[in-house]
């Protein structure tokens, strides 16, 4: 190729040696304000603003007093910042007979989410490990059944589970809801872990067996430390899924044990009295805060874990 270039330059009457020295060299220069950059960043900024405006409105509104809200300028920043709506939403807003705000729902949700996440991920990771590494008889059938479970609409199973929980005496309790969440998380989590453990080189597993490690020792000492990224993914999926759940919460618990989402709905949709927009906004942000924090804290790990699991499926 260099020869062709030289020939062309000779034909054009250019001295090839000097042209070569002064020609392009090193990294290609790039303009910061190229048309391409303007288009890309312009689009990104536009979309970001579009997504962030509702959040802005919510935060701004939650910091205003009711008289200021009645003026109707929803985009205007608060003239007088007040945290009273936040306090009320957390501690004194009324839902039905209780007037202790969202705090009760928050603690209920914590009591539901923590055991559900631990239990479902614990069982699903062992499931996935057994399915991927210990190919027992009927493993494929078992896996197929589990995957089919992921595609059955939840609504179909609501009533049978109500009866089931009633019969074992857990209907309306937090533990009943924990069991329900753990069961419904099982198919997708098992799939997640199975795929991850399948991507771990088989020879590693064989080496551990030659070294004399059994089922549990390989799981805890070899596999578990390697599976940290996928555990983070599973934890995020479960925390946000269970925290945001409304359907199961409203069906399988009683007013005393309602999770935060159900309580939020009851606060926002209460019909008597004035609509307190600032309290509603504050309550909504409070409810969404937990998944939001989870995302912010673990975003990087989440992406890494998803990518790791996607290598081999």
């Amino acid at each position: 190729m260099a020869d062709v270039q030289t020939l062309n330059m000779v034909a054009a009457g250019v001295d090839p040696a000097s042209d070569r020295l002064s020609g392009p060299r090193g990294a290609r220069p790039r303009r910061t304000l190229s048309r391409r950059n303007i288009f890309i960043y312009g689009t990104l900024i536009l979309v970001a603003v579009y997504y962030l405006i509702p959040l802005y409105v919510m935060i701004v509104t939650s910091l205003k007093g009711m008289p200021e809200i009645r003026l109707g300028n929803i985009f205007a920043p608060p003239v007088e910042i007040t945290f009273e709506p936040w306090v009320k939403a957390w501690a004194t807003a009324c839902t039905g007979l209780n007037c202790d705000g969202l705090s009760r729902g928050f603690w209920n949700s914590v009591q539901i989410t923590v055991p559900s996440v631990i239990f479902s991920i614990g069982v699903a990771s062992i499931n996935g490990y057994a399915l991927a590494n210990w190919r027992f008889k009927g493993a494929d059938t078992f896996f197929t059944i589990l995957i089919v479970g992921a595609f059955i609409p939840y609504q179909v199973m609501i009533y049978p589970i109500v009866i089931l929980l009633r019969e074992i005496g857990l209907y309306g309790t937090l533990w009943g809801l924990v069991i329900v969440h753990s069961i419904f998380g099982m198919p997708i989590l098992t799939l997640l872990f199975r795929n991850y453990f399948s991507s771990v080189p088989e020879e590693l597993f064989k080496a551990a067996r030659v070294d004399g490690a059994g089922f549990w020792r390989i799981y805890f000492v070899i596999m578990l430390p390697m599976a940290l990224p996928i555990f983070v993914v599973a934890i995020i999926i479960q925390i946000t899924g269970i925290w945001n759940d409304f359907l199961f919460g409203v069906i399988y618990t009683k007013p005393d044990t309602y999770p935060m989402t159900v309580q939020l709905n009851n606060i926002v949709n209460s019909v008597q009295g004035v609509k307190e927009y600032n309290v509603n906004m504050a309550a909504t942000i409070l409810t969404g805060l937990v998944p939001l924090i989870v995302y912010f804290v673990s975003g990087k790990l989440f992406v890494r874990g998803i990518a790791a699991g996607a290598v081999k499926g």
Partner: protein
Amino acid sequence: MDTPATSVSIRDLSLNFGTVAVLKGLDLDIQEGEFLVLLGPSGCGKSTLLNCIAGLMDVSDGQIFIKDRNVTWEEPKDRGIGMVFQSYALYPQMTVRGNLSFGLKTAGMAKDEIAKRVARTADVLQIEPLLDRKPSQLSGGQRQRVAIGRALVRDVDVFLFDEPLSNLDAKLRSELRVEIKRLHQKLANTMVYVTHDQIEAMTLADRIAVMRGGQIQQLDAPQTIYSRPVNRYVADFIGSPGMNFLSGAVEIKDGIPHFIAEGIDVSLSNYIFNGDAVAAGPAELGVRPEHIGVNSGEDWPYANTVAVEVVEPMGSDTLIWSKLGNQNISMRLPSERAPRVGDSVSIGFDPMRASLFDIATGARL
């Protein structure tokens, strides 16, 4: 059991995956302290056989004895084996020390004994400076050395190697090859080594088992496999560049068998036949490129003159291609004596060093 000196003994071993028979009624006896290489192309069942010996795969039929003990149903850890894998299979989250001591810890060995063994192993393999590093901080050659150490530290009777050098580059491979050979001479343990690389097989093995389709084709010393392959498959698989095969027929002239093809007539008077009766019939004559003399000035039992068609320099040697009768034939000679394309050269070979195969069965005649 027949002889007490048998280290690993395999009796009528079969393994089926569903309807596919991977190993078919395989028998193999490995002597105490022997270095046995299982050689074959991918899919011939050599790694599967090794996994069966290790106990990582359940067999469908047959028995496996290690040190005269029937281990067919035993767990890998109870078989007295150590295994080295192609991908090293080091535990990524543990240090080299952790990797070496994992098996010993699992076995519940006392701490000071573990430390002693790890130190001894590290000394043998010269990996002391690496003991506190993680596998990700090691080069390929160092990783494989640690992997060998993990087998070594457990003080096992039998070492199993599953293509341990295939992930390394050519230079490291030859270095580690020598190191494994040294290790074997030093330890004198039984070693079973799986590879598809015939150079590794030839250089390392006391005996080579050439495998194909789940069966052992030939089990012999490397030199025997090279010079007297039992069938056309083994002859073709061993040797690089590959053996020349001339198809033709065996005819008996005046009581002396001759190999006849178009333009070729080789007297087989000094060829050592398998069995006594030599029958006339279609056959293939296999001649290795390095056994054909080119312009050598020697008096060959068979000689001819051919024109050079292609010249392939390979460094120290040069491979030249030509036609004998109407069949392609390659010859190997030192590069300094290499002819040029179009030259006419006199060639010759000794039928005693050639191999004659039945066309239908491929078996050595």
